[in-house]
């Protein structure tokens, strides 16, 4: 037989500089939007004579951030550690339990309705309880809230990934005489990875929310949530806004961190670009 002409897409890889350059172009529309939003925000507050202390202008927030930057960044770091700890505990447990439930399916089927129901619970409502169970001034109480928030989406998504394997992929492994553990390691877990990363990205956001909202109900004075809460109640809205900005920055960095790990791990996926 002869090899017929075949359509093979080139591997979309280039030099690093080339890739950065191309991506820079991709980012231009988003940057334009950002600038427009800030300009409109800045100007509309001046034009409509909105009370400055209620809705400060971006430039005011920026200068407030700059004067308080050491306090804000270290408060953010404190809260980020809580979020990270909760993320690690909650996601780790979620992954572990999902593996167990996928391995023993009847067990999984019995628990699945409750897990889906638990996924719909506004878990953040438990934050005051967690503060009572654990020392409210410790990082542990906020980690507990963040962990519970992360746990369910990671568990449910991982389980879905582990069990949404093409039946023939499993038959193929059986045809090679592969056992259950080999099949998990070589087929189920790789198949589940895209699901797992989606869940982990959601979990980063939830962990930050858990830590900050947990702090609204009481926490150490060095925590970002406490700072935002106390500044708002004393009408120091510029400081509160600056705190929110820092929370956003940590949250985005957290999300991007996981997204980068995803990109490095899922190299085979044609495009994970979002």
């Amino acid at each position, binding site marked *: *037989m002869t*090899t*017929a002409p*075949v*359509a*093979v*897409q080139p*591997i979309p890889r280039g030099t690093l500089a080339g890739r950065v350059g191309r991506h820079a172009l991709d980012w231009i529309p988003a940057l334009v939007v950002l600038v427009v939003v800030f300009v409109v925000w800045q100007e509309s507050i001046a034009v409509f004579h909105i009370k400055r202390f209620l809705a400060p202008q971006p430039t005011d927030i920026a200068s407030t951030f700059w004067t308080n930057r050491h306090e804000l960044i270290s408060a953010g770091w404190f809260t980020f550690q809580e979020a990270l700890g909760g993320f690690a505990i909650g996601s780790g447990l979620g992954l572990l339990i999902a593996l167990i439930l996928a391995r023993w399916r009847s067990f999984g089927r019995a628990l699945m309705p409750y897990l889906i129901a638990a996924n719909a619970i506004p878990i953040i409502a438990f934050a005051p309880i967690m503060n009572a169970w654990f020392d409210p001034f410790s990082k542990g109480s906020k980690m507990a809230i963040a962990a519970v928030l992360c746990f369910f989406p990671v568990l449910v998504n991982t389980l879905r990934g582990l069990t949404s394997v*093409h039946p*023939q*992929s499993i*038959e*193929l492994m*059986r*045809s*090679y*005489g*592969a056992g259950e553990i*080999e099949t998990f390691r*070589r*087929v189920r877990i*790789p198949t589940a*990875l895209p699901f797992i990363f989606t869940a982990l990205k959601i979990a980063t956001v939830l962990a930050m929310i858990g830590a900050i909202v947990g702090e609204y109900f009481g926490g150490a004075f060095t925590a970002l949530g406490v700072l935002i809460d106390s500044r708002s109640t004393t009408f120091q809205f510029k400081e509160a806004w600056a705190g929110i900005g820092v929370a956003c920055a940590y949250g985005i960095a957290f999300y991007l961190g996981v997204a980068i790990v995803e990109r490095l791990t*899922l190299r*085979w*996926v*044609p495009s994970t670009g979002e």
Partner: protein
Amino acid sequence: MSVVEIKDVAKRFDGGTVALEGIELAIEEREFVSLIGPSGCGKSTLLRIIGDLIRPTAGTVRVNGKPAAQARTDRDYGIIFQDAVLYDWRTIARNISLPLELARWNRRRRNERVQEMLRLVELTGFEGHYPWQLSGGMQQRVSIARALSFDPSLLLMDEPFGALDEMTRERLNLELLRIWEASGSTVVFVTHSIAEAVFLSTRVVVMSPRPGRISHVIPIDLPYPRTAAIREDPHFFELVTNVREALHLGSDLDRKPAAPAAAEAQP
């Protein structure tokens, strides 16, 4: 000793559907046997029973003289499905070497074997590609390479070219014959296509549905090596006609007025 020996095999699914009944078949070394029949005749089920991917309700299957389950764990056969079933996260080379990893071959031997297999299916140079970068026909060639990589004595093929266009299919038919002749393996090939069955096989096993059973076995006495020209040979047409008539006879037998149309529940 037959490579595959099927004795009085029956398969009843949980719903009560009788997928197979009274199957008797012996396949000898170096044979190329096609199973053909309408949907619901149990041909894919029979293939999976040979591969011990499904257990029969009754009867015995022996592969290379061993029980089918033993033959499976001994990796006596390679299987190829209609979809290539390549693992997306593995490169072409690592897809082909998967069964070798499971058989604990060392890296050097694996790499040598992968190169050999890529040459066999004429995909040298694609080892670093991922499956999505290949066309459907190329993916199916990778799955053939993977099934042959550990040198099984038996190849089980479940409509391997069913999802491909006619031209690719005819090309891969020729390639499969070349590989079969080179590797010295025995092939059991499930297909919907009469022409494909006749073109490839040493024997065509015609099956009829409800319950699935073997209605005819037609030897194909066309000489090997077969070339594209055989498709225009009068004897080829004659054999195609024989198979077609056998298929229609099988389905005529089935046309009992009271038969409920509930046997389509094939996996």
